[in-house]
């Protein structure tokens, strides 16, 4: 699993995730989890997303594209 997938899995508290995993299908998904992904992108990839931009992302691959990394 790539470092990016590991980081996303860590935030989502999942054992692992795949690129096609739908973010909002995470057990216990909520706004705080979405916020945590936004902050993780800022801290680790120096990418700042607005809430509006984040809401358009559906999968882990979308998130990777937003971060500019290969999932």
């Amino acid at each position, binding site marked *: 699993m790539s470092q990016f997938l590991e980081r996303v899995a860590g935030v989502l508290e999942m054992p692992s995730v795949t690129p096609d995993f739908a973010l909002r299908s995470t057990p216990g998904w909520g706004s705080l989890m979405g*916020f945590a992904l936004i902050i*993780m992108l800022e*801290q680790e990839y120096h990418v*700042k997303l*607005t809430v509006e931009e984040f809401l358009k992302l559906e999968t882990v691959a979308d998130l990777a594209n937003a971060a500019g990394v290969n999932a």
Partner: protein
Amino acid sequence: MSGACTVVTGASSGIGAAVATRLLARGENVVAVARRADVLAKLYGDSPNAVCAAVDLESPDATARVTAAVKERFDNVRGFVHAAGFVSPAPLGLVQDETAHRLFSVHALFPLQFLGWLAKRPNHADDAAAVLVSSLAAHEGDCGNAAYAAAKGAVEGLLRPAAAELAPRGVRVNAVVLGVVDTPMAQGSWMARCTPEQIDARRARYPLGFGTPEKVADVIDFFLGETSAWVTGQCLVADGGHQLT
């Protein structure tokens, strides 16, 4: 220059700049503290009553450098306004140690050390007043604000013992606890993430609207001046009626 001065941190923008500008307009002496020398020079370089102190309050020698700037030009301190600050939102699990240390250094450790220096007789005027800037974040349960809220809570924890120790000297210490103030700090943090509609939704919870640096400077001015001469160790909430909603 000689005489007493007011030390204003965060003087390069927002609340700190509003306070420093107001004091200078009245002919008072100000030590304007902020990180960026170029911004300070642009704002206060032409003011004969201002001393610009380009100091990063995160640095271990911040208090020594600020107090040196005071003593180099002035006799003592009559006012201290600690408006410097920054936010760094993150859920609990993503709070970085370095960021948390920076938050505590700027918001709480610096005023603790500066008030410690101010507590010595030669360093303060007989009627000196200090104003610390806190935030409703320390009182509300906003998710993602734990580190900032903890740092502001530390500021309020400092307030009363400091006020008690300094009161016999005639030095007062008070705090303003602020709701949302439309400052460059807010614009660069949560406002930048939100849509105009989301910002409007938050503004709707402020019956008197968001604060402005000038409105906050009015409150700080009260605590600095003689009209609050019988008030110390107090937190005054300025939030546009937010807590009523």
